[in-house]
Every structure is written in C-alpha cells, then in structure tokens.
C-alpha cells in the first residue's frame, strides 16, 4: 500500500529533523540510528506502543545480522523488504503524515538515507485490559465476553462470531488532534446503502478535536431528543445480532463499546438474554420491562398528583394510610418526593464515582439515612419513600433508558405536584410527540409500533420462539415508514406519487 503526498525527503537527516520538530522532543518518540553497509538508517518507534521484543527479534536482529551488499540505498531497502523482513507486516510510506499516523498506531518505521520511502512494520504491543465480562450488560445465558479498549481485539471478537466474507469493517479516522481510529462494521448484503451513505457523510463531517469515548460522537449522529436514537453495547454478540438486522456498528479505538445505528425505541426493552431463554418467560420479562418503564416514569408523579389534588383516585383505605403517615411530617408530599428523588440521585452518583472500597460505606449511609432515619425522625413519610424506592428499582430494569427516565420522572413529579393529572397528561403528550417525531437515519424511532407493523410484533409484544423468528429477519430498513429502501408513506406504504 502506498501513501499519498506530501512526499518525504530523500535525506534521512532532513526527515529526522522534520519529525523531531513535529514531536518537539517528546520523550516517547524513539529514534534508533544505525548503518547498513555504510548507509545511514534509523528505526523510529513510539515507546510503549510497540512490542520491544518483536522489534528486536523481527526487525533489528535480522537487519543487523544480514549480509547486505553495498548497493544503492533504494536497492538496499528493496532487498531488506523482500528478503530479510518479509515475515513482518509491512506498509510502504512516502509521506510524513503517513509516517506519523503509523507511528501513532504502534508501527515501527524504518528509514534509510537517500531512499524516497520508509517502511512501516506492524509490531504493536501496547498493554491493554484483557477481555472480561461486560459490567453494564450482564447476561445469565450467553457469552461472557465484552468489548475491550483496542479496536482490533473487538473486531476479532465480532469476526469470530460471524464467519462470513460479507461482514465488512471499514476504517475511518476522526478527531483533529486525537486522530482516533473508528471502524464501521456491517454486512454488505444486508445493510441499506442509503443508511451507509448517510452515516459516512455524517461521520466525515464531524469536526471535533478529540474523540475519547463513544458519547463524543453520538450528538453528531442524531438530532437532539429525550431518547437515544443511537444504541450502545458492550457485547459482541449483541452487536452481531444488530448487524444481522441491517444495522451498522461503529467501533471506536480506545472505547469498550460499539455504537449501533439506527437504534429504535423498542430495542431498549430487548436484551440478549431474551433470545436465550424460553419464549413464554422472555415474553413475561418483556412485559415486566414495559411495566417497569411506566412505573419508573409515572408512579411518583401520579402519587404526588393523586395525594395532592385528586385524592378521589386512591382507595379510601390507602388514602387513610397516606394521610396518617403524612400528618407526622413537616413537608408536603410534593416536596418530599422532589427531595427524596434528588437525594436518591446524589446517592447513586456517589455510589458510582466513589472508590470501590468506600462504596459499601456510601450504601450503608444511604440506606440508614434515607431508608430508616428519615422516616423514624418524621422528616418524610414512609409511603413516599416506598414510592421513590420502587421507582428507582424499576428504572434499573431498562438500563439503556436510565438517563431519559430519570429526567422525565423528575418532570412528572413537578407536573403532578403543580398542575395535577392534567399537567401529567400534557407532559405525556409531549413525550409521545417527541418519541414519534424522531427519525433515525430515515427510520421512524417509534417503529414498528407506530407506524404499526403486525409481523414485527413477534419481537415486540411477545418474544416468539426461534422457529418463528428464524423464518424471517426484520431488517431495519424495512421497518414501516422507513425511507431507506423506498420513498414511502410513514406506514410503509408506497407513495402513489413516487
């Protein structure tokens, strides 16, 4: 492979001065100078990015021990390339940018004086975390492997699961300073060309200095909305499943996650475990997830609205219990709910960020202070505490939705506590419109529920058995209302005018 201009100088000294200037004496830029039968040469590496043992055994030792005849420098380089170092992965570089890029990616670069090109050798050897179980997507059944930081390892994990030449990995570089390698991953015959074109166009237009996590890219790939139209997964098996449905995965070097484009709302309720368990149980779990989603958003708001403005909604016996508990506390139910919700979020954030040895202490303090002392001291009522606790637990059933759910819950507590059930219904309407208006790469975010598609319900309302699911895979571009394969109406029907 030959790189494009600007071309390197034939003078080794000039090239080295140029590169030293670029790195400005950075301590990890290592230049090892030597001679090959009287011709000056140098091996350039970035310390920590290469495997030193491989460098010495596969590059330096063969070069220094080789009997290279006194030829022209270009001929010497060719001889080394074709005879001495032919066992190592090689790339021929003719521009300074290409040399820098390869060095940054863990290549060792051989330069010879009066030779118009340099040779890069793939000797990457940086340290990285070994493959382990994903922490945020825990599964009972299925693989225990999760993505790690190096992209190449992640690529191999996907490749191992999909042994087809139709699986394509397409590299790109994003980030003016970080020059982060990313990789689009898709099945050539399954993905919509239009989706791919739009995605590449979007990625190419991203202007950002550094890309250090998947979250840096998502705002550039979707329109602002409450819910995410770009999925995130730590699991190679999940990514393979999504790719199989015509989606595109984006692997980002240095990030143990893959972005999945497009990602529909109903996918938040699907987990890999669903497909590894029996259908009736998976269906029940799925309905539990739907219920939990509604509980986690509406329960506290509804509780506050009912207790404050519409006591007639509650059964009399329950109302009496609430009134009894609340008569002992100094604050209104609305205030209690808001404060408890904020306290809970603080405790959760502390639990996440605190060093692991201290996290137990945080949990104990949280449980004692919020759970017990607050009620026994009469600061908050037990029913309110129970509602917030139930809501918090329910919100973990759909972890992908935690962020929007948390915000919406807060919004609905405020609406319920200030305007009552009317305000909540209007808020609900607003959320519904927001959910329905979004189109992720020309696929309606609310599909296949609205626009409705009966066949897709086998993996939405229920989780049908594999005998049914295996008959036909629902491609994302064929979702009702999708404009990826056809210029159709939002119900998937062909426009008469088109």
């Amino acid at each position: 492979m030959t790189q494009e201009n600007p071309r390197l100088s034939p003078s080794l000294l000039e090239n080295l001065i140029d590169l030293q200037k670029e790195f400005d004496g950075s301590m990890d830029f290592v230049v090892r100078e030597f001679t090959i039968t009287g011709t000056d040469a140098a091996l350039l590496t970035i310390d920590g990015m290469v495997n030193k043992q491989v460098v010495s055994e596969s590059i330096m030792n063969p070069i220094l021990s080789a009997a290279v005849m006194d030829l022209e420098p270009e001929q010497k380089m060719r001889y080394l390339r074709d005879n001495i170092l032919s066992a190592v992965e090689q790339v021929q570089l003719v521009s300074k940018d290409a040399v820098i890029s390869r060095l940054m990616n863990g290549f060792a670069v051989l330069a010879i004086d009066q030779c118009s090109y340099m040779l890069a050798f793939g000797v990457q050897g940086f340290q990285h975390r070994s493959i382990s179980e994903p922490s945020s997507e825990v599964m009972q059944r299925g693989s225990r492997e999760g993505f790690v930081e190096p992209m190449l390892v992640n690529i191999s994990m996907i490749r191992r699961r999909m042994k087809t030449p139709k699986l394509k990995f397409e590299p790109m570089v994003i980030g003016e300073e970080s020059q982060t390698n990313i990789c689009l991953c898709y099945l050539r015959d399954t993905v919509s060309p239009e989706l791919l074109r739009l995605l590449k166009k979007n990625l190419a237009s991203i202007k950002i200095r550094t890309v250090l996590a998947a979250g840096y890219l998502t705002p550039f790939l979707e329109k602002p909305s409450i819910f995410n139209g770009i999925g995130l997964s730590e699991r190679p098996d999940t990514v393979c499943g999504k790719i199989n449905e015509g989606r595109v995965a984006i692997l980002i070097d240095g990030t143990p996650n893959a972005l999945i484009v497009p990602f529909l709302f109903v996918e938040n309720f699907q987990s890999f475990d669903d497909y590894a368990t029996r259908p009736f149980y998976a269906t029940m779990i799925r309905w539990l997830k739907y219920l939990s989603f509604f509980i986690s958003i509406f329960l506290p708001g509804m509780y506050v609205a009912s207790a404050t403005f519409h006591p007639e909604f509650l059964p009399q016996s329950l109302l009496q219990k609430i009134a009894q508990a609340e008569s002992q506390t100094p604050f209104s139910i609305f205030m209690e709910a808001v404060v408890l919700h904020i306290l809970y979020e603080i405790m959760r954030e502390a639990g996440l960020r605190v060093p692991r040895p201290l996290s137990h202490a945080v949990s104990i303090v949280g449980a004692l202070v919020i759970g017990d002392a607050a009620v026994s001291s009469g600061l908050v009522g037990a029913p309110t505490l129970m509602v917030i606790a139930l809501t918090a637990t329910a919100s973990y059933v759909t972890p992908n939705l935690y962020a929007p759910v948390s915000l919406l819950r807060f919004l609905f507590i405020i609406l319920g506590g200030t305007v009552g059930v009317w305000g909540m219904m209007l808020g609900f309407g607003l959320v519904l419109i927001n959910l329905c208006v979004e189109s992720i790469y020309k696929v309606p975010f609310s599909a296949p529920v609205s626009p409705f598609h009966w066949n897709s319900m086998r993996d939405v309302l229920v989780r049908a058995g594999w005998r049914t699911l295996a008959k036909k895979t629902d491609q994302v571009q064929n979702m009702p209302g999708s404009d990826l394969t056809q210029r159709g109406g939002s119900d998937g029907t062909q426009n008469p005018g088109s």
Partner: protein
Amino acid sequence: MKKLSYISARQLFTMLIVFRIVIIMTINSILMGGNRLLDNLMSCAIAFTLNFVLVLPIYFLNRRSPRTNILEKSYDLFGPFGAGISMFYALYFIFVDCYYLSFFHIFTVNVLDPYIPFWLIAVSVMAVAVYGAFQGIEALARTALLILVVILTGMLFLFITVIPRINLNNLYPLWVDGTDQMWTGVLQVLGRSTCFPIMAMLLPQVSGRKKLGFLLWNLILYLFMAIGIFVLVSSLGSYVDTQLFPFFSLASIAGVRPFQRMDAIFIGVWLSGLFLKIATDLYLVTQCCIKVFGQRSRKISTLAGAVLIAGGSVLISSNRQWYQQLFSLKLTLPLTITAALALPIVMLMVDLIKYRKGKRQNAKQAVQNDSA
C-alpha cells in the same frame, strides 16, 4: 419547495377516530335533544348511513384531483378568490378548537374543583399543541396510534369495571316521546363531524386503502358511540339525564377493588385526545395560512392560531351566553355543513363545468384544426 409528507390511510383514520372519540365523550342528554338518551342509539345508525353521503363530494373531488387538496383546488378553480376559501377553513378549524377547549373548561368548572385557572390550562394545552403542529402531520399521525391505544385501553377498562353496574331494567322503549331526540341527535352528530374538512385537507397526502379506512372509521366510531350510550343508560339509569358529563359520572362510579374511581382515566383519555386534535387543527390552520401568505408565515400562523384558540376559548367560556351559542346547533351545524359538504359540492360542480367547457373547446379547436 418543501417535500410533502405522506401518511397512510390507516394513520389518517386512526387520527380521526381519536378526534371523534374525544367529542363523543362529551355527549349528554341535553345536547342530544332531551332526556331520552337511548333514542340516540338510532341517531348513531342514521348518522352512520348519512356519513356515506356526506363524504361523497370530498371523495369525488379527491378522485378528480388525487394530489390536490381542497385549498389548492380552490385556487385552481377560483384564482385569487381561493384565498377566501383557505381563510374560511383556517377560521373553521380555529372555531372547532375553541369549541373543544371550551367544553373542557365547562368540564373543569362544573365537575372538578378547579384548582388552577383555566387560562393556564388553555396555555399549557396550546403549548403542547403548537409543539405537535410544528413537528408536522407524520409525527402527529404516529402519535395518534399510541394515543388510540391509551384511549381504547382506558375505555375498555372503564367499560369492564362498569359491567357489574349494568342493569337492563334501566333500558326503556325507543321513541315513546316521539322521534325529536333522535333527529336532534343526528343533527348534533353531523354538526360535530369536523373530520370531513380534515379529510378534504389531508386526503391528497394519504396513501393506501382510503375507502376501507373510511368504512372502518365510520363503523368503529358509531359502534363506540352506540355501546357508550347503551352502557351509560343501562348503568346510570335516569341519573344519566341529569349529568352534564355522563361519561365522567360513569368513570366516577366505576371501580374495581384497588381503584375506587376511574376519574383519572376519563381525564387522561380526554386530554390526550384533545391536544392531538388541536395540534392537527393547528397544523391545518398553518397550511391554510401558508397557501394565502406563503411559506414564511408558517411559524407565525401556527402561533397566531394558538393564541386565537386559547384566547377565544377563555373568552367564550367566561360568558354563559356566548358558550350557549357556541354549543348550539345553530352555529356548529351550518359551519360544518358548509365546510364538509357545501364548499366541496360547489367546487366539484365548478370543476365539472370547467372540465366540460374545456373539453368542448378542445373539440371545437380540433374541428377548426381539421378544417384548416
């Protein structure tokens, strides 16, 4: 030029079901013409049949120009005078929304303890409706299906919980006091048929099986209304005739063990349909204004429409005489008949006359060319 959004026939009629259910939920004996609500069962049957006639002008107009809505057609036929028709439809939709929102006000004042001022409710509803109108018809159509699920689930739950209270002894023979109530009911139902003007506006943007959609829409709607009347009369008895909002009364008495009253369901169902109806009408008001004032008036016309609806409903519901006028058949029926029937008929006839004239001229031209 902005790309035209397309929705399917299924989505259009889903929206229209939601809009009609919202208004069906406000029926009461007084509005329907007396104190024998059961007579209105036949009103449903008659209105169901009449709807097939009412839709004909819009259907033929659409068939003659499938990709032209009534506003564009009016410009094609009447030139600049078409602006008058656009403005009529804009004002009609604003009027309809004032009607819907004022009804909600009457409900809050008369049935619930109003703990927040109505203007605040009106402003909140309009804020959500404006957001919806800005998102366009596709988003509203998708939202409609989810709202229909909410409404149907709510109503089903309500009907199921009220089953133990159904007493067939509460039913009485039809037309004992004559057929006046039945005919008033028919007129009331027709006066509230605001879906026809919506069809006239949106049909060109609709793909799919429109005729089947219309048939199902009509059937579901009047079945729902008939079942509603049957459940109301059989479970509430004569109490139904004294209630301003019988469906709410039904929700109040309904109860299964843990839930003693179903008021929340009623309010939820009504409000969720209401904002969607107003959002769609605002979208249509915007389309009317765009036709007259151009694309640049898009945002301002939506906002102006929202202010007019909110202000109008607050004003109307603050004056007893005004809202009595608004809710009377004298106003709603002529306006709806004009928007749904008269204007489409006039346009259809003018279109036919122009077409025949054009055909005759073409034939004359052809003869002249031949002789030349």
